[in-house]
């Protein structure tokens, strides 16, 4: 970076942004996590994956969860989805305690997880039929959601005929079709190439702006987190605990131009400092690894310069 970024600047919010956060915090709480703890029994003894995690997500808020590997962010979202049981603590959805998986919490996985034997339309209809809609109702609603993600032309296609980005759009439509109170997304764009990823981020934000949905989004990509989130929940590893909740100072609605704005870079610098502290074991730096020249001086191409 050429310009020196003052990472403390991430705390400075413009009036519009501060005003928005004030209003955001007055909205009803959709998801409340109370002293959530998860311990695993391993042959080497007990491991605490999550330790006393507390946070709130307000209605129609977009929250990203970020943290170093091993911080338990996947465990957290799996517990929220009901796919794993917490060792202690609870989660409240609109004030009611929930446990076990259910259609009130939609989930989008990194690995798409579309049913390969069903067409796009039937994939989206799956949850609707499970929740008791008639076939014709389900079909009608499914088509609306497929339209929303721009795949009407592919309604009769099968997942193996679609690209990665399209598959993930179907997965989003499938999760939204149940009209969940919260959409849980576990590194949904992690397997996509950078260009598709960028398009999908824009697409997801458009969807989020236009329908009544609260999003909890896990990622390990700092840019993605800042670009998408209202607030970022930073976890630290061993044990997984909430390190900080960051209010992203970048104004909404977001635009790719903001990726180089001062607020954006300051937030990123702060996140980098939190997540990649100076000394870690797997640091590959020139001082630590002694390089030996292994190209002959008389080689046809003796130097890369």
């Amino acid at each position, binding site marked *: 970076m050429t310009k020196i970024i003052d990472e403390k600047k991430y705390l400075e919010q413009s009036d519009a942004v501060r005003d928005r956060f004030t209003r955001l915090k007055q909205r009803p709480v959709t998801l409340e996590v109370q002293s959530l703890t998860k311990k695993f029994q391993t042959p080497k003894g007990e491991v605490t994956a999550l330790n006393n995690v507390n946070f709130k997500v307000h209605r129609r808020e977009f929250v990203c969860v970020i943290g170093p590997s091993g911080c338990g962010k996947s465990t957290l979202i799996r517990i929220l*989805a009901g796919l794993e049981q917490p060792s202690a603590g609870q989660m409240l959805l609109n004030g009611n305690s929930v446990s076990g*998986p259910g259609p009130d919490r*939609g*989930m989008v*996985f990194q690995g798409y997880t579309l*049913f390969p034997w069903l067409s796009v339309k039937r994939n989206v209809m*799956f949850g609707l039929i*499970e929740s008791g809609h008639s076939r014709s109702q389900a079909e009608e609603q499914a088509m609306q959601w497929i339209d929303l993600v721009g795949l009407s032309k592919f309604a009769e296609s099968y*997942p193996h005929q679609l690209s990665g980005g399209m598959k993930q759009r179907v997965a989003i439509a499938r999760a939204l079709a*149940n009209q969940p109170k919260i959409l849980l997304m576990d590194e949904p764009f992690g397997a996509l190439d950078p260009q598709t990823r960028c398009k999908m981020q824009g697409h997801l934000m458009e969807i989020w702006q236009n329908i009544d949905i609260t999003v909890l989004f896990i990622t390990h990509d700092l840019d993605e987190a800042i670009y998408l989130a209202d607030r970022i929940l930073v976890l630290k590893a061993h044990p997984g605990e909430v390190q900080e909740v960051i209010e992203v100072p970048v104004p909404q609605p977001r635009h790719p131009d903001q990726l180089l704005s001062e607020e954006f870079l300051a937030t990123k610098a702060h996140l980098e400092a939190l997540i990649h502290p100076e000394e870690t074991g797997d640091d590959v730096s020139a001082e630590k690894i002694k390089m030996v020249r292994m190209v002959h001086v008389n080689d046809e191409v003796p130097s890369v310069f």
Partner: protein
Amino acid sequence: MHSSYGLSVRTPMNARASKWVTALSFLLPLAIWAAFSYLPFLWHPMMEITEPGSVGYFKEGMMIERDVFEQQKSEAALEDRALPEGIRANPIYLPAPHEVVRALYTSFTTEPQRRSESWLHESLWQSIQVIFWGFFLSSLIGVPLGILAGTYDFFSRLFEPFIEFFRYLPAPAFGALAVAILGIYHAPKIAIIFIGTFFQQVLVIANTTRKLDRSLLEAAQTLGARNKSLVFKVVVPGVLPDLYRDMRILLGWAWTYLIVAELIGTSSGITWFITQQARYKNFENVFAAIIIIGIIGLSVDLLLALLGRRLFPWKKSEAGH
């Protein structure tokens, strides 16, 4: 090595070359067989007598081992008697390809030698029925049990240890028992096929079911699917292509149990046909019958593979070959 020859690790061959190699896989054994049959200097350990000469017990058309023939010939030469003559021949149990090809037709037209015996097509039909019923009944119970054991830990622990034990008991060992309980006709044979297939089937299908991508089940749960619909709307359709492939392999095993099954109770079917023809020394019929089993097996498998590609287009690589 250039990749189109298919000799680089895990690189597919080009389509035309691979067709040739497939043809070669049949032509090569055929060529070896033909060489041993038609080239008199290769093997041919017998002499077929064309002229007995002065050797008392030689008769025209008789097969005699070559060293015995040579000994008799040299004795006759020493004593200045008429020399026996003969041509080198293979033993009767190795007919030449053209004889077997002819037998592929004639074995169907050869009348049974005794009243109790059947024509080849009748024997084949009996065998196919035994295989069908044995495999069908086994699948009727084995497939649901396998899926159940692969889905629920409870059923896995309830069924699998005993089945694991039982599958080591050789199916033919139950032959006498099957006859005592089920009589001497088709029933005990079907029972042997059943025993041979069923226990493997449950274990194989349970394993296949367990291999279903867990995240599909998790996705279905977050969409609101519960117990019954998880099993019937996710597990069953999810494992169907792999289950189908397992069934094709298991059907092949069922054929191997046929040979044992048909030897118990009243003998019948293709095995009995083969045994009888060998007794009459019609070895070309024996080979023809064996080849017919192969042709039926391979064509059923190819047909099922073709059907599999139609049924499960999303699993092209696995459902087909």
